[in-house]
């Protein structure tokens, strides 16, 4: 590539730190991280599938699933992806007040999802499904718990973005930070799309 073309590319991309791929290292790193996360969640989902009928004579997660309740939680998480992308869109346009509002709404929807998960775990425990009750319970709590931890970390990232925006540190110029956090948030949503279908909706054979 000629020097003139390379300079033009860097100018068009508005990236003062041009890379060979034309993508910022932070964004590429996030995508590679998400790629490895597929292996983590793949392991947890497979483990649950292998153990889901091993209740050792006790109650199984599939016996006490509350599908209508979990459906509402799933819908809330799905809509948080919309508010996340609206936050990014607003920040990229320089509409910081609107961007901050959408970031806050996204974090709140994430909080509602986590609240629902806490309620679900509590009600399951009251029905006799503890973490060590049987292999099916352990696999279920580990999988959904890991996902919940990911959502919680996402909420922390969203709140730190909101604080940065409040302090004037987050501007239109560094909207890529919002995009990178958004990628993580959407990935967490994608994983739940998979968990909701495979774990909750497909009934035992």
């Amino acid at each position, binding site marked *: 590539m000629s020097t003139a073309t390379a300079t033009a590319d860097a100018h068009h991309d508005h990236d003062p730190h041009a890379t060979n791929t034309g993508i910022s290292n932070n964004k590429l790193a996030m995508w590679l991280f*998400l790629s490895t996360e597929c292996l983590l969640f793949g392991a947890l989902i497979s483990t649950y599938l292998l153990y889901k009928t091993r209740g050792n004579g006790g109650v199984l997660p599939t016996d006490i699933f509350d599908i209508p309740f979990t459906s509402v939680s799933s819908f809330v998480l799905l*809509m948080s992806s919309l508010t996340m992308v609206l936050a990014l869109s607003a920040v990229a346009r320089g509409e910081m007040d609107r961007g901050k509002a959408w970031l806050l709404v996204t974090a709140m929807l994430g909080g509602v999802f986590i609240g629902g998960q806490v309620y679900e775990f509590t009600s399951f425990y009251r029905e006799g499904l503890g973490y060590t009750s049987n292999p099916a319970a352990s696999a279920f709590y580990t999988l959904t718990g890991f996902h919940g931890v990911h959502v919680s970390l996402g909420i922390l990232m969203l709140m730190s973005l909101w604080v940065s925006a409040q302090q004037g540190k987050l501007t239109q110029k560094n909207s890529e930070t919002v995009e990178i956090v958004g990628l993580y948030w959407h990935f967490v949503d994608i994983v739940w799309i998979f968990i909701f279908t495979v774990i909750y909706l497909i009934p035992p054979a």
Partner: protein
Amino acid sequence: MSEATAGTETHDVHHPSDWDYVKIAGILGVLTTIEVLTYFESVFTFFETRWILLTTLFVLMIVKFWLVARMFMHLKQDKPILSQSFAAGLALATTVYIVALLAFNFFSA
């Protein structure tokens, strides 16, 4: 791809408007509603047939996954290397764990 093409390929992308995102979210909501309806087999009796149920659920799941990754995560507009790196991880995970499930006779159970 020529150098000239490579230099311009990222500039012709059309970024969706906020209204486009709302429409995509609406589609996702409708797909989720259909998924949840499969739970009520007593009302929608054709979902009692297992292959119809499984096919419906897997198709809906894949469409939702594709919509979020392509539109909300901007894979449609971003450089192909990002789609490729994510697809590589996804394909590796899918292969590894299908082989693991086969090894434990999951599909014959």
